[in-house]
């Protein structure tokens, strides 16, 4: 890993050469130094050797797939940011399963600029040598405490009653603080894909969360509305050991 001015080093693992031969130059042009792995074993070996700043992993690879690579990285105490490339229909719940601890995920086929935005966001959020929020079992933001394994949340000493979807949304917001979340992206978090007319479903769940938290949209402590764009989790998030 280099100094602040150095190009971030990223390992890109996908068994499809059509993907890597296009994506590697794209990321290179965007300012990353890219190392390509054609399967999971090669990805693990590269991470071991290069100690990169981040990793982009396809979930479907022969032998060792992306999830297994991620599990082995985390088990080995490697906390580098990881973006998973998943299949349509996988909600955040599955894609960022706690025992795997991906920092973000993206359904194929994706917009390459979206991958760039997510990759930059996870690198910005990275805390070198420390466990990412997405791999932490318990998180705290002000008076809010969330046990991500049992999927329960408390405000001070009172447990919140939330629908499973609201809980899923809260979890995603907490693990991606200070990031602009468009309604479409949150819809994808809930469903694993975008619905053409469904962004209202997101607003409903956000309203549910705000009610439960007693968060005033005009002066939000946790969830701020970004007019015309979406939402942003504005509180500082820490992990509790």
């Amino acid at each position, binding site marked *: 890993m280099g100094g602040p001015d150095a190009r971030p080093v990223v390992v890109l693992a996908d068994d499809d050469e059509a993907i890597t031969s296009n*994506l590697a130059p794209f990321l290179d042009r965007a300012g990353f130094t890219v190392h390509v792995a054609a399967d999971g074993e090669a990805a693990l070996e590269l991470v071991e050797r290069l100690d990169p700043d981040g990793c982009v992993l396809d979930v479907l690879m022969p032998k060792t797939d992306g999830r297994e690579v991620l599990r082995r990285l985390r088990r080995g105490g490697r906390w580098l940011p990881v973006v998973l490339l998943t299949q349509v229909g996988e909600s955040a719940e599955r894609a960022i399963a706690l025992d795997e601890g991906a920092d973000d995920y993206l359904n194929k*086929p994706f917009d390459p600029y979206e991958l760039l935005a997510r990759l930059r966001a996870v690198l910005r959020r990275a805390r070198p040598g420390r466990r990412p929020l997405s791999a932490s079992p318990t998180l705290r933001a002000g008076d809010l405490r969330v046990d991500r394994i049992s999927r329960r949340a408390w405000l001070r000493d009172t447990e919140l009653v939330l629908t499973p979807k609201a809980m899923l949304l809260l979890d995603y917001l907490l693990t991606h603080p200070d990031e602009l979340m468009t309604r479409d992206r949150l819809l994808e978090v809930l469903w694993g894909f975008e619905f053409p007319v*469904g962004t209202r479903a997101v607003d409903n769940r956000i309203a549910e969360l705000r009610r439960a938290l007693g968060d005033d949209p005009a002066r939000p402590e946790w969830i701020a509305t970004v007019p015309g764009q979406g939402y942003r989790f504005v509180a500082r998030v820490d992990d509790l050991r």
Partner: protein
Amino acid sequence: MRWLPTGALLRVLAPALVGAAFGAALQATEPGARLYTTASPGLVAAIAGVLATCVAALVTLARRRGDAATAAATEAGARQAAEEATRDRLRFFMRLDHELKNPLTAMRVGLANVEEAGVIAVATAGTASALASVSVQADRITRLVSDLRKLADLETREIESAPVDLTSLLDEVAEALGEIPAARERIVQVTVPRAPWPLPLIEGDRDLLFIAVQNLVANAIKFSAAGDTVEVRASEDGDAVLIVVADTGFGIPEDEIGQVWQELARGRAARSLPGTGIGLALVRVIATRHRGEVAIRSREGEGTMVSIRLPVPDRAGTASTVADLRHNRHTPGKAAV
């Protein structure tokens, strides 16, 4: 089965044929356009991959339709054939999505590369617009494939089962009309009974039900003209709630009405309008997942009426007598829809 030999043959040959055709087309293009190959060989390979998969997919789909028709001919096996066809279709959509997602991703990244490396490759007149066109078409295939995959996903995924208040849901549908600009040019009425009692709660996933009704309303607005009427009516109907969306729009020709619930069904009237033809198939899937039913009636030139019938969860137990009485009293006064 008569499709099988041709289908299998074509599937084997398709990638080669498409690749060859693509190569020939590239050779025939202007030298400027040929720069694509130097700019991004990966892109060309990806495009060939997408085309090859599409050809193979269409052949498979045609074969399946043929098989289903043959099996359904014997009445005894019809139901079994239908179930098998559904499972088959799901597997097919998932495989199609699976096969297309990599070539499509590669195409989109390749296009971004060409655009960025740009200056040389797109300097020739015409290449920039050709590039833009490929990009639009790639997005279109992406949308189509992901729509099909969503449908397959909705048919199988676990859905939320919570009490849903259809009254507030329909209020929200009425509110959401403001987001459809053309709605302002239609006479839209939403009628939800409040007396003698409100609609009973049903059980299910509120988000999905909202999407279903919203889709029907959006369709009614899309396939009607300024000044037409769109009505959304809800009523209690025995052990179910009936939601009807009716319009005085273009209507559907008789020879097309049988296909409207199928994926990708696009009537002649829809050809000039945007969309992938997934809407009604989605409504059907959502209704079915709630143990409900859908129906459609239409007259060309007069309008269309689509209904969703959703069962009210078991009213047995302590409240059953009251509920039955309520039904009996209610039924005679209710207009059949």
